[in-house]
């Protein structure tokens, strides 16, 4: 089979690749949203003044969470969650939520540390100024500190998002189901096709790699646009 023929065959399979890309992106998007929410909550708990026992308690939980999640491999976490869900529910016709939650929980720990460092790098005078005009800690956080922290952490958050998008490729270790039918993520489909046509395995892998690269380049572009937009708000 000539290279041209191989590429022609690959083009005929584009539908399968794009469908799989869709699942990869759904998982990544869901995980980013979940991870960001978890990250903001954990970061705020970590940073809140420790003047009441409830916050102290949640702070301890946050520390344990971040330590455990950052201390174990993503793939292990995914397999633990996937197997636990199998034990509890036996079978699920649609299980996209499993990787979304696994990656979201994982990313949340990293986002928490990113956002916490962002909040810490905002000049403490900003909080003092907010408090001095009578605003509460929470309002000052929401209106003054978080918006400035977000600006600081945009590059690092995008770094985390890019890592997350690529890391979704480990879902090929579990069986994805949508409406009772098995589906594959981007790496998963390349491997499946490679098993069927071993001669083209490398081509399929390259195809998957190129698609990941395109997605990441698009994300980088979005990052630059956001950074430029945020910068405009300062002058």
């Amino acid at each position, binding site marked *: 089979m000539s290279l041209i023929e191989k590429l022609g065959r690959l083009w005929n399979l584009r539908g399968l690749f794009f469908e799989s890309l869709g699942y990869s992106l759904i998982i990544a998007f869901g995980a980013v949203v979940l991870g960001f929410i978890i990250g903001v909550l954990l970061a705020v708990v970590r940073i809140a003044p420790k003047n009441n026992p409830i916050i102290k308690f949640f702070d301890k939980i946050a520390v344990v969470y971040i330590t455990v999640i950052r201390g174990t491999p993503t793939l292990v976490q995914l397999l633990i969650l996937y197997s636990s869900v199998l034990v509890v529910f036996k079978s699920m016709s649609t299980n996209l939520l499993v990787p979304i939650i696994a990656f979201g929980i994982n990313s949340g720990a990293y986002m928490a540390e990113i956002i916490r460092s962002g909040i810490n790098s905002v000049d403490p005078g900003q909080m003092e*100024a*907010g*408090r*001095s*005009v*009578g*605003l509460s800690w929470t309002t000052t956080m929401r209106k003054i500190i978080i*918006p400035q922290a977000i600006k600081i952490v945009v590059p690092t958050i995008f770094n985390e998002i890019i890592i997350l998008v690529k890391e979704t490729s480990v879902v090929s270790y579990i069986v994805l189901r949508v409406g009772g039918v098995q589906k594959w993520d981007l790496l998963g489909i390349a491997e499946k096709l490679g098993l069927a046509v071993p001669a083209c395995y490398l081509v399929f892998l390259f195809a998957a790699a190129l698609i990941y690269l395109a997605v990441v380049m698009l994300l980088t572009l979005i990052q630059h646009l956001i950074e430029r937009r945020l910068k405009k708000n300062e*002058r």
Partner: protein
Amino acid sequence: MNDNYIEIKGLYKNFGKLEVLKGVSCNIKKGEKVAIIGASGSGKSTMLRCMNLLETPTYGEVWVDGKLLTPIDPYLHFDVIRLSKTYQKLYTEAIASGTSSEEVDKAVIANIKKNDLLKNHEGSAYAKAIKQLYKQNFQQVDLSRRDMGMVFQHFNLFNNLTVLENMTLAPVELKLKTKPEAEKTAMELLHRIGLEDKAKVYPSTLSGGQKQRIAIVRALAMDPQVMLFDEPTSALDPEMVGEVLDLVKQVADAGMTVVIVTHEMGFAKEVADRVLFMADGVILEEGTPDELFNHPKNARTKDFLSKVL
């Protein structure tokens, strides 16, 4: 009632092992202009920041407009001390030896204060008295801060908001004014300092002097009762000091209560009704500008003034 707006009683502030304030008391009357001077590290900024609780005092009480902002410090309330088990024990012991009751009372209280003898459990009468005092007088500091404008050495304008938003955020967020009302007030204030054209810009485009003048009118936009200035010109280029001091003077002349921590001795002399000289965490000397600058009594004050004047 008295006409003191701010009362600081027996204030101590420790940062870890470092004692910054070592028992400071002072009253600021309504309408009074008070300048606080002293070398760096003397505790003057810390004392000012205790007035609106940006620093939490370790011991002592802060009262603003008749409201208590800190927990009760039992050592400041003799009636409360008298209810404590420790007092009653010491008093009974002392009275048995036969001195007059009034003297014993004084001695026992002095002893308790000096040696920090009050314990965690001093009986229910004592606990109840503290609780009641607190309940009667305590006010959330956020409420008092609305009446106390603060101006910082490093301006601390909100970097993510325009000048106008800087000035309207708190009044609108705290529902003291509607947005149009707050914007109208803000524009009037900006007009007064000649910076209306800066309403829509972000703080990063302003000069230090402009930033500080806007920080001052941001505080004024809350219609405060008192303005606290924490070295408002220390971070400015020399050519911008004048414009900021002019505005501070305007604020003072308008009848506002003003407390200013400053290194500008000429300004303190000109504007203040009363000058406090601080050193090593205590107020060493206070008086009118004439008394303090022209006839200082304390050797430390003389020494300090000879260095800065």
